[in-house]
């Protein structure tokens, strides 16, 4: 951030000068481009990992277990990031891990979005009793530590890809409801909704054609950030043993396996975590840039 090297000490004026604002925009945009690039890489790897990966993610070779990464002394170029405790290539498994993360992240967010946006629309548009009930429900969900509920759900339903998506979706929707409810309330009072009402449009038409399109920017921004959170949460569940099960290459599973060897083979835990970090960072950067573009006001929250 070299262009910000000069400290900005003028406390009188809270709003930045035009030049500052332009620079700020550019900086954020640049970060957004970086984020978008990371996401494109992620999608590319997820689609083409069978061609990119040097080995089979499930092929074990016990004679080659715990091999060092290529850049360390004693490492082999054949296994760029070394091998795990069963002699599988770490890089291959990390590349395949993008598939699980993206699928879980996207599917969970679609689920959250469907439930959360619907409830938020109903609460915000109709108000009254519906709002009271839904708001109370949201409060209850917020009082429930996410991790306990998600873990219990997975434990009860069984640890499969589908159930993990369900567990993440069931615990994540209140965020959408809260935001959509307030935004809908604001929109409800606007003239164009009043106009639609006085034209005797059906409620369904007003919601679908007039309110929802205006909420799209907020939904897209929120959904982007939530994908990152869902990816982190999936890896967390897998790490705790209540998510994706080994030998499926999920970053969380690999971290949990690598943890047992962290005293000597640090790379087994370090690299899968780095993958999660980069994926989440890319999505968050893009989300931040989108938020700035769509609605600078949202930035504060």
């Amino acid at each position, binding site marked *: 951030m070299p262009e910000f090297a000069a400290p900005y000490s003028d406390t009188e004026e809270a709003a930045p000068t035009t030049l500052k604002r332009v620079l700020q925009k550019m900086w954020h945009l640049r970060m957004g481009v970086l984020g978008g690039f990371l996401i494109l890489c992620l999608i590319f790897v997820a689609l083409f990992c069978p061609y990119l990966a040097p080995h089979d993610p499930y092929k074990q070779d016990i004679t080659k277990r715990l091999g060092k990464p290529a850049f360390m002394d004693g490492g082999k170029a054949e296994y760029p990031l070394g091998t795990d405790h069963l002699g599988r290539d770490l890089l291959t498994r990390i590349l395949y891990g993008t598939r699980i993360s993206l699928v879980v992240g996207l599917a969970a967010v679609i689920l959250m979005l469907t439930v959360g946006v619907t409830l938020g629309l109903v609460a915000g548009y109709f108000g009254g009793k519906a709002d009271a009930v839904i708001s109370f429900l949201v409060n209850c969900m917020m009082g429930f530590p996410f991790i*306990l509920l998600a873990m219990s759900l997975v434990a*009860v339903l069984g640890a499969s890809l589908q159930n993990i998506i369900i567990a993440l979706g069931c615990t994540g929707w209140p965020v959408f409801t809260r935001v959509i409810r307030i935004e809908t309330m604001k929109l409800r009072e606007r003239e164009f909704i009043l106009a639609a009402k006085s034209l005797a449009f059906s409620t369904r038409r007003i919601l679908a054609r007039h309110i929802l399109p205006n909420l799209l920017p907020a939904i897209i921004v929120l959904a982007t950030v939530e994908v990152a959170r869902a990816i982190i949460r999936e890896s967390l569940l897998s790490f705790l043993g209540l998510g994706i099960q080994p030998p499926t290459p999920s970053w969380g599973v690999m971290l949990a396996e690598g943890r047992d060897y962290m005293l000597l083979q640090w790379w087994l835990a370090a690299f899968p975590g780095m993958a999660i970090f980069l994926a989440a960072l890319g999505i968050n950067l893009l989300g931040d840039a989108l938020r700035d573009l769509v609605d600078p006001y949202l930035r504060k929250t």
Partner: protein
Amino acid sequence: MRTFIIKQLVQAIGVCLVISMISFFLLFLNTDPALLLLPPEAEVSDIAKFKKQMGLDRPVPVQYLDFLRKVVLHGDFGNSFMAKVPAAKLVRERLPATIELALAALILVNLVALPVGIVSAIRRYSLMDNVATFTALLGQAMPLYWFGIMLIIIFGVWLRWFPISGSDTWAHLVLPAVTLASWILPINMRMVRSGMLDVLNQDYIRTARAKGLTERKVLIKHAFKNAAIPVITITGMQVGALLGGAVVTETVFAWPGLGRLAVDSIRMGDYPVVQAIVVVFALFVVIGNLAADILAALIDPRIRLG
């Protein structure tokens, strides 16, 4: 003020009730406690007898009310399936360690977030503000258990500054507390900054400056007091995140708290313990929110009257 507190209390009790209900019905989703508790070779008649004895043959809502009555009146969650001791006792034993860890993290977070957030707001878009914002962005993308493991590898294994697991001395507390703090620090820092920015844009700050007060007086007498409200609210709201993070942190560092007990109990299907922990966690979250709301209302009459 009294009506405000009563309203909040009613809402809080309602939330607790619903959470206790969810945690109770989780048990009924697909496990039969009788099958879990009895040996696999038990006869059908034995199972029926056992169910009658335990009251498991009654309608589920009746069982729930019974569960609720025991919990509220006696703090009794039933016996742990595995340890065969009251679940409440297990929770009581583990609770202090979790509170110790959570408090240490909370202090750490506020030690960093308050000064950094405030200075970021005062010197908006300064180098420090940008560095802080960028760090928060990195922090939000960091999985906390990975951060914990990296701390262990660097400070525990390579540098050997701190022990890597257990909870015997204060040195054991350092790495877990830092890990847990990193979990909520980014959000906290951002919220302190935006809360302070909101205050600095208010008319009364301009009035204070127009009166000719020194910048120091404007900040200390007018800005900080008002910025305290969002800070209190944030801290109250983060009790849930703190406890959720504790579950993970305790697992990584083998910290003998409630979180690790929760993970173990869920894995083994020890539902009385899970229910007890869920209810205790929910109580903490609700009390945290309640305390924050009431404190904020005490400071700011607009909240309790509006």
